[in-house]
């Protein structure tokens, strides 16, 4: 079976940092693939390589079998891109934005206009199509950009943080929209996000990238299973000692125990079944439970498991001290 995306040993080095460090993975045709990672993990760099906006230092990447370095024109015809920043023209109406974009792909007028009508209807902007984008809210603008990414009926759609900065309502609308598009077409979607809920709800497969490397790749369900346990019981106890930790670890139904300051996280398969035994045990040890929270293991836990809790020192943007941040920054490494 052909792969929608094939990435082999891709490395992208900037003078001060290796943004993508020997990444290899494939994305099957159809469905939504999610690429997760903290800020500065290399998500956007990887997307830019796959969308021919940047050349890799080494390695190979193919979209629908076309090499991104050797055949960028072919790749561009096959992909739709919704970049992280809002990139629709504020001075133009939604209709004009789509129409002009369609012309970039040499679409004949009739086909272009039919697709535009359909997409505007789908993203719910039909009534506002003749208004300037400057009058749009962030969510509307994002929906327009998704429509624009689909105007030429691409084989693969890249969505770089599609719901960043949007309110929960707009986010739900966009999720609905993506589900609808997925169910109606054979489109493959390649999505990056750092909203775990988003990846969990939308993606069939998820890759976690950190420090330029893929640290995990599987379906959300499998990823959750891989870190052990399905439910997490978080407890604050009146006392906590290595002996207690040892005792907990020895209990059969407990998959894993982690400790943080005065609280313990206990990973179990079924919290409802585990609770009575746990409470009994603490009573026996004469330890009071000060606080208790149970939550189902989420992709967030998987994410934290693989990427740790520390906040990333993001690479400072370089700028030329002689002319300030307005210098042409296209030299390699000036913008990570």
């Amino acid at each position: 079976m052909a792969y929608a995306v094939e990435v082999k040993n891709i490395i992208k080095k900037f003078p001060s940092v290796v943004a993508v460090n020997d990444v290899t993975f494939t994305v099957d045709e159809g469905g939504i693939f999610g690429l997760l990672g903290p800020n500065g993990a290399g998500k956007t760099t990887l997307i830019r390589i796959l969308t021919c906006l940047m050349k890799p230092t080494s390695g190979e990447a193919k979209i629908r079998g076309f090499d991104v370095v050797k055949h960028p024109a072919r790749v561009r015809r096959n992909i739709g891109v919704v970049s992280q920043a809002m990139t629709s023209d504020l001075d133009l109406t939604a209709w004009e934005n789509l129409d002009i974009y369609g012309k970039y792909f040499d679409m004949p007028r009739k086909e272009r206009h039919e697709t535009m009508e359909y997409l505007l209807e789908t993203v719910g902007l039909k009534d506002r199509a003749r208004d300037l984008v400057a009058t749009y809210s962030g969510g509307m603008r994002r929906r327009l950009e998704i429509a624009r990414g689909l105007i030429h009926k691409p084989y693969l759609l890249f969505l770089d943080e599609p719901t960043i900065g949007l309110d929960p309502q707009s986010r739900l609308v966009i999720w609905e929209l993506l589900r609808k598009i997925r169910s109606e077409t054979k489109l493959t979607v390649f999505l990056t996000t750092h909203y775990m809920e988003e990846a969990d709800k939308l993606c069939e497969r998820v890759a976690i990238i950190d420090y330029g490397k893929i640290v995990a790749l599987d379906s959300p369900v499998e990823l959750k299973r891989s870190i052990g346990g399905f439910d997490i019981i978080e407890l604050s106890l009146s006392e906590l000692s290595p002996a207690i930790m040892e005792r907990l670890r020895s209990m059969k139904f407990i998959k894993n125990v982690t400790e943080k300051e005065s609280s313990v996280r206990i990973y179990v398969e079924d919290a409802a079944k585990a609770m009575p035994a746990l409470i009994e045990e603490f009573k026996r040890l004469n330890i009071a439970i000060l606080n208790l929270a149970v939550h189902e293991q989420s992709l967030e836990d998987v994410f934290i498991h693989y990427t740790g809790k520390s906040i990333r020192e993001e690479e400072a943007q370089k700028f030329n001290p002689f002319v300030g941040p307005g210098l042409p920054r296209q030299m390699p490494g000036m913008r990570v």
Partner: protein
Amino acid sequence: MRALAVTERDLRRFSRNPVLMIASVFLPLVYLIIIGNSFQGELKHLPLAVVDQDSGPYSRRVIELLQAMQEGSRTIDITMLSDQKQAFKLVKDGFYKGVLIIPPKFSEDTIKNVNPQIGLFVDNTDSISANGIVNIISRSMPYVKTEYVSVRADRAKAQFRPVELFKKIDYDASLVPGAIVMAIFMGTTFTGAFSLVMDKFLGIHESYLSTPLTKMDIVIGTIISGVLITTIMSFLVLLGGLFITGLKLAGGVSSFLLLIFTISLTALGLLSMIFIILGRADHPRIVGVVIGFLNVIFYFPSGAVYPVESLPGWLRAFSAVNPERYAVHAMKALILKGSGAAAIQNDIIFLAVFTAIMLFFATITFKRTM
């Protein structure tokens, strides 16, 4: 055609900025009015102090001549002073533009014909006023010994009569080609490469870089929209300039078409040149600085305000490769003289070669990746 889609996008965006459109036509016209009225005025009412130490018949004759000038052309306003020292001080302090000293034996020397002299001391920090005073005084002095000016001219004397080849053209009217060149330059600075700089600044360039648009499509499409906008703007400035100065186009339809062609060609050349310089800039601040600089170095040595022949050697050498100079020369010929293609042939050849070179490098140096 994809490049035309780029053009369409630019034109539509520009049409959503009516204030910019009005300002872009209005500013070169304001400029025309201000420069036209700042430099062309004749000198009037220059204050001149006169110290008469002679009080003889011929010194009175000199003063009469000065008074005649004061009443007639009103170039000077004379004030009689008795103290020479005080007169010098007043010139130094800026109250007078000059002082005329008639020495004690002036009348006697004049009668004896022994080289009579008058002292004229001018404030040469204001060289234009100083030259004005020197000119009119030296023109009038030969008449000191003449009681009346003969009506009949001396037949033996050679006569010099300047003949103006073209219809009388005021200084402000002669600036119309300059105002158009300014409009072209302005137009090329906020269209073309500038719209790409703004795209980068706003971060929206990513959207078209991931489409099949080629480097050529982006460069050509952007420049075409720039040429269209600039040509229309310059044409409106031409109409406004003609209206303000009362000038009429000297030539017929063919000169007019050549004029529009020259404007478009100049716009194309300048847009391509600016594309090379700003093709990689991503902040409007850079544009502001670069454009201010380019405007001065191209505009003033172009002959738009003052003849190129007045420039020192090094500046004239630069002016020889200044596209605006050729544009001004061609437009002066077409607007003021109504010349045909032959008169502007060299200008067009230069502009065409310049444009071809610039366009070539604009396409080569433009980078399509992020």
